[in-house]
């Protein structure tokens, strides 16, 4: 039985696999190959999508999407060999669109909703990209690095005058 790293490199071209620490393996994939990678990993037993996250690499001009996959282990199985995978892909900041992974992992639905709201990433094919947390529309999605929350608070909240009796 070959390790998961070998399997991934054997099945996909242009994919970077790297062990970053004990029990964590980073898998960097192309935007186009993301769904097939996730599908493959799910079939390999990585059925637990822990987290879908996004890192705003503003200097490189990209959004780095992070999918954390692990196995549902039971009994005496210990995760030392069955490392969690950190699957990464990049989308350009100028045109942040990506195909949704809801069809592979149902769990991704609220995460992608949140990322849409917080980073402005459009997940095509997502069942409901409605606002999740925020009440009012903010022009710039707030989790982006160029969104200055202190300035926003200063402008929007502090400018409202106190009520004088």
């Amino acid at each position, binding site marked *: 039985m070959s390790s998961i790293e070998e399997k991934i490199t054997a099945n996909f071209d242009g994919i970077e696999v790297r062990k970053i620490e004990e029990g964590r393996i980073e898998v960097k994939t192309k935007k186009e190959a993301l769904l097939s990678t996730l599908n493959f990993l799910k079939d390999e037993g990585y059925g637990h999508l822990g987290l879908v996250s996004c890192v705003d690499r503003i200097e490189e001009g990209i959004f780095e999407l992070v999918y954390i996959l692990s196995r549902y282990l039971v009994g005496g199985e210990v995760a030392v060999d069955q490392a969690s995978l950190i699957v990464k892909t990049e989308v350009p900041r100028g045109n942040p669109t990506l195909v949704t992974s809801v069809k592979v992992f149902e769990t991704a639905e609220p995460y992608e909703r949140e990322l849409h709201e917080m980073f402005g990433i459009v997940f095509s094919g997502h069942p409901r990209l409605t606002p999740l*947390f*925020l*009440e*009012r529309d*903010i022009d710039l999605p*707030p989790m982006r690095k160029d*969104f200055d*929350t*202190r300035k*926003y*608070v200063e402008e*929007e*909240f*502090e400018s*409202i*005058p*106190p*009520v*004088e*009796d």
Partner: protein
Amino acid sequence: MDRRQLIKWLKEPLKMSNKYSLHVVYFCTGCGIIEIPPSITARWDAERFGVKPVATPRQANLFLITGYVSLKTLKPIIRTYEQMPAPKYTVAFGSCPIDGGMYWDSYNTINHLDKYIPIDGYIAGCMPRPEAVFAGITHLWTLIDEGKADGYKKYRRNYSQYRSNQERLYGELGWPPRFETEGLENE
């Protein structure tokens, strides 16, 4: 009940009954809520003083805002406050409703709650212990006694200011003004 109490009851039944029958409607806005259950259960038992949580704002006369107020929560808070029958009192928990507390720079929490609804008392601390809650309530009693807990009157008087602040925050509020906004400012 000693004689002084009795005389007080006969003289000012409104104040006395409001003091000793504080029915609470609360918003679980964050951390402060964690100390509400201890205050109403076995250890502290707020019902000794007639403080009792009720289901809807219509039945309540004390509004506890237990912590920071996010934008999404403020709207229900305003609605709930307006649905309470007068006389009504509001007490805000923790440092956050006063000036934002540790969330002073968050894009989703408003920093000064009293810009949008009147607050009769603050209980400072992050978050206030049950003892502080009781201290706050006894302080509210003295405020009621002295007639200083008049936030609802203030709200009525300055409704146009409150309403305009609320609308600046949200644009459309989704419900018509509670009182007439015109012509009140001059009074």
